[in-house]
């Protein structure tokens, strides 16, 4: 039952989403909004700005380094979280040392 | 800040400080706590009396204002508020003395006296609020401050009564809040009592009627208009001083006071007249008067009988207010004062009987007059006043109410008032008669200090009832000022 409801719901949403997709700028065309001044600066200025040939690298470690810092924090958070979940023993009974 | 403003603030603050002090005193120091309670009530009452003296003398009243969230906390004096303030704060002094005796053996005195004093300050806040928001604030706080007093004994009945009280009050308060919000939009943010009527002039009468009934239902809960009275009889499980003070004077009169404010300060006489809702209101009050008396007749538990009597008598005040005539308003104000002073004596007497003999029911009271002559004597005299016998204060308020009804060409109300007087006689007189003529196997007991603490305030207030009956003119300056405030004569 729940499965059927989920399917019907997803199909309904799917129709609306298709309508939305038909409105999106065409895929791969060079004059989509995404290919604007932002892309231009990255492509033409990355070398001068950062000295990196690889623009992706330039973005990851220079233009958007703050994001990368937080990204590593995500990783760090997950590691600590895994520690916290997996650490054995002493469940709620206090330290047994 | 003038003396007046300082006094208005101080009269409220002093009880709060007293309450905090009482709460801070450890359990054993009884005497100290009693002194603080009575002292704080006394000082606060003295301040209010001095304010009366200042206000009546000069005709100007101080105002205090502090902003809060695009609303303002606004304390002002006017004759209507002063009447209620004087009444509550004065009776509070006597009720605190009575409480000292009554609560002698109670184990939770600290809790009791703390909330008892807090309620005093909040009641004064209601009396002195200068705009609807402040009024609503103190009105809502009163519910929460008195709840612990209602459930004081902690029994199942008390908790059930408390639950009922809170439910009724909160639903009522939300009606008031809805009304305030509606008023806010109609007037564009004006909540001051002094300027609402003018700001309401542009609203359509349909909107105004909805607004009026929102207020009426909201305040009607505490004023115990039938069918919103359900909480009051059950709240009688509270300790007697609480029933006497809160459920015969402070809380119910707060509701009545709210209705008076709605009719006279929010709408104004002319606007209410133009709404043509008067017949409905008068019918509502008449029904409450008669039904309340009839139900009281059938009650055997003394405090419940008094509670239904209160419901009936409160409707007198509202009736006087709704007639919208100067004489009737004077009657209403007089009845507010006299009913409070009389009913509190009846409750005090009932409390003394319950404490000394353990009897709670009317049918058990036979012969109690023999061992408690002063108590039952006061009860008898004052119940005559309640009925409206001539040399007692109750007569004068009913007299004004009747004159008001006649002047407003509503002679049918005369019948209602007389009928109710008759019913009052039917349910009060047998009590006194059986108390003094009946026989019982009770032995007279040694007079204790506690009894003295209870007896003295009872007798003093009873004396007031007689004095006001003989010299009704004593209250006239205040009543005149109220009438002059709302009727341009």
């Amino acid at each position, binding site marked *: 039952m729940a499965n059927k409801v989920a399917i019907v719901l997803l199909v309904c949403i799917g129709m609306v989403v298709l309508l939305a997709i038909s409105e999106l700028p065409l895929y791969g065309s060079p004059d989509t909004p995404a290919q604007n001044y932002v892309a231009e600066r990255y492509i033409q200025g990355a070398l001068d700005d950062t000295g990196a040939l690889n623009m992706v690298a330039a973005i990851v470690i220079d233009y*958007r*380094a703050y994001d990368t810092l937080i990204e590593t924090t995500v990783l760090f958070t997950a590691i600590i979280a895994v520690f916290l979940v997996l650490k054995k023993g002493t469940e709620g009974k206090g330290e047994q040392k | 800040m003038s003396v007046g403003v300082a006094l208005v603030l101080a009269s409220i603050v002093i009880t709060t400080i007293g309450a905090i002090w009482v709460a801070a005193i450890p359990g054993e120091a009884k005497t100290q706590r009693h002194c603080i309670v009575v002292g704080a009530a006394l000082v606060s009452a003295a301040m209010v009396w001095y304010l009366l003296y200042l206000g009546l003398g000069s005709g100007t009243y101080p105002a205090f204002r502090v902003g809060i*969230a695009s609303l303002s906390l606004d304390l002002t004096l006017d004759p209507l508020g002063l009447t209620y303030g004087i009444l509550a704060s004065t009776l509070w002094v006597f009720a605190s003395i009575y409480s000292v005796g009554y609560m002698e053996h109670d184990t939770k005195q600290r809790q009791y006296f703390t909330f008892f004093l807090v309620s005093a300050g909040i009641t004064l806040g209601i009396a002195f609020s200068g705009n609807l928001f402040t009024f609503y*604030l103190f009105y809502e706080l009163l519910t929460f401050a008195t709840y612990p007093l209602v459930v004081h004994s902690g029994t199942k009945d008390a908790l059930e009564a408390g639950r009922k009280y809170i439910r009724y009050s909160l639903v009522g308060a939300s009606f008031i809040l809805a009304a305030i*919000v509606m008023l806010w939009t109609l007037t564009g943010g004006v909540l001051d009592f002094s300027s609402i009527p003018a700001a309401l002039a542009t609203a359509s009468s349909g909107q105004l009627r909805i607004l009026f009934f929102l207020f009426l239902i909201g305040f009607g809960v505490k004023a115990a208009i039938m069918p919103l009275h359900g909480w009051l009889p059950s709240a009688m499980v509270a300790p007697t001083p609480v029933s006497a003070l809160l459920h015969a004077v402070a809380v119910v009169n707060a509701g009545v006071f709210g209705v008076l404010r709605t009719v006279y300060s929010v709408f104004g006489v002319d606007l209410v007249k133009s709404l043509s809702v008067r017949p409905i209101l008068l019918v509502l009050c008449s029904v409450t008067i008669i039904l309340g008396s009839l139900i009281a007749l059938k009650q055997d538990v003394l405090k419940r009988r008094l509670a239904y009597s209160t419901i009936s008598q409160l409707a007198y005040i509202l009736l006087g207010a709704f007639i919208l005539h100067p004489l009737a308003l004077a009657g209403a104000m007089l009845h507010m004062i006299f009913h409070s002073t009389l009913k509190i004596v009846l409750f005090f007497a009932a409390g003394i009987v319950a404490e000394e003999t353990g009897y709670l029911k009317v049918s058990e009271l036979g012969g109690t007059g023999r061992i408690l002559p002063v108590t039952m004597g006061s009860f008898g005299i004052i119940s005559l006043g309640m009925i409206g016998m001539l040399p007692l204060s109750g007569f004068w308020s009913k007299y004004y109410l009747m004159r008001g009804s006649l002047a407003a060409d509503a002679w049918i109300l005369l019948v209602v008032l007389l009928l109710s007087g008759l019913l009052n006689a039917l349910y009060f007189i047998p009590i006194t008669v059986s108390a003094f003529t009946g026989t019982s196997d009770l032995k007279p007991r040694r007079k204790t200090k506690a009894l003295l603490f209870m007896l003295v305030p009872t007798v003093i207030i009873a004396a007031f009832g007689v004095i006001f009956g003989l010299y009704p003119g004593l209250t006239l300056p205040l009543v005149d000022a109220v009438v002059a405030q709302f009727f341009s004569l």
Partner: protein
Amino acid sequence: MALAFRDNLAVLVVVALLSTAYIMPLLTKIRRFRVAEYFAVAMLGLALSGGIYLAREILLHGTFTYAVGGWPAPWGIELSLDAVSGFFLITIGVVATPIMLYASVDLIKEVGSRSRAAWFLTLFLLLVAALCGLAVTGDLFNIYVMVEVATIASCAIVAARNDATSVEATFKYLMLATIGSGFVLLGIGFLFVLTGNLNMNFIAQELSMSWQKYPTALWVCLSFFMVGFGVKSALFPLHVWLPDAHSTAIAPSSAMLSSLAIKGYIIALLKVFYVAVGAKIITRLPITDILTLLGMVAIIAGALFALAQDELKRRLAFSTISQVGYIFLGIGLGNIHGLTGTFMHILSHATTKALLFLAAGAMIKHTGKSRISEMAGVGAAMPVTVGAFAVGSLSMIGIPLFSGFVSKWQLLLGSLANGNYLAVLVLVGGSLLAAAYLLPVLRMAFFERPLQKPVVANVSYVQLAALLFLVVVIISVGVVPDGVLQLASEAATALLGLEVLP
């Protein structure tokens, strides 16, 4: 000099908290673990004062931006400091500091061991840092990354109890929260496709010129955001994870999640809706009506579910769902009063619910009773704690002189300004229902006679101090709300783009 400090402070608040979090795991070996805990409290207190300073600067000098790493707006990440950020930073500081203080008392006992306690502190600080990051950021993708840190950290602090039920609740929470993040990222993708920008101000610029070309796409994109952030902030039909997660976690975790974590996502939603897309466009799409409707349903449904619970913490958890409804209602109203009410409710619900959860935690821990029907006599055993709970209850109901009233009053005005009388009814009804589900707790605790004599519980003074701090905040916001109210209405004005700030 002062200006340079101010500009750097924006990023400094986040980075300082992050750095504190990074070194926390190293502090397990410290001899007195208390020192580590108080260090965390001190850092949170510093963050609070930083937030207050920033808010003051924003009020005095208007909004300002900070380009991280020196790369200007459309290319690098820009932090934009406006009244919204200032307001939320203060909220975070005011709530997180006392929660941390409360947690510091018996953290090791609660979570099991010293190293686990250190990890808990780490995650707590990471969560706070991520929320601060959400408050100050002006970049969409940065929002996503911050949201992820917050999500993982908040999942982990639920799991800190480490018994079967809380791990199960965590898994449920993680799954649904990840679906939420997926929707958010999808929405960001759509906005990127439509505008080619990630900076919210630039997106707003681009959209204002071109949005008529793709109304459905924009609407679908906003719905993605609504669903995504709605799942994470427990908007009513998407709330299924919340009751389990909030009721099984330890008290500081529940307090943190219920009061702050949820609000972070709401702030993000506000930024996306009102900064990136803009009030003009939002109000023309059917999205605000949906939000208003969902808000009203949430208020009533959450309160009804709360009434049905006997377990105290579950009742509080459902109360959160109801209160989140108020916030969404305000967002949906989309006028100045509604949004001011939203901000005030973010603050007042954060302080109030933190207080309630912490007080409830102390009550449950010291009496060993988690059901409301068993709580008779608790009030006599721990009067200050239950008294604090009473203050929280009154604020939650919306009694004047407590902060809850200020926000509900603004929401009432907002509903009236839109002529939405149904919302007025729902707001008042929600308050009555709040009274119905909170006051019985007090009646039980204070006035019901206990069956056996309750043990006298000695709540530690530090925990009482934390509770009293929140009580003071609630009452002072309720009595003199002028300062925060000004900040809130300034934030609302900024979001609505009504006028340029001085």
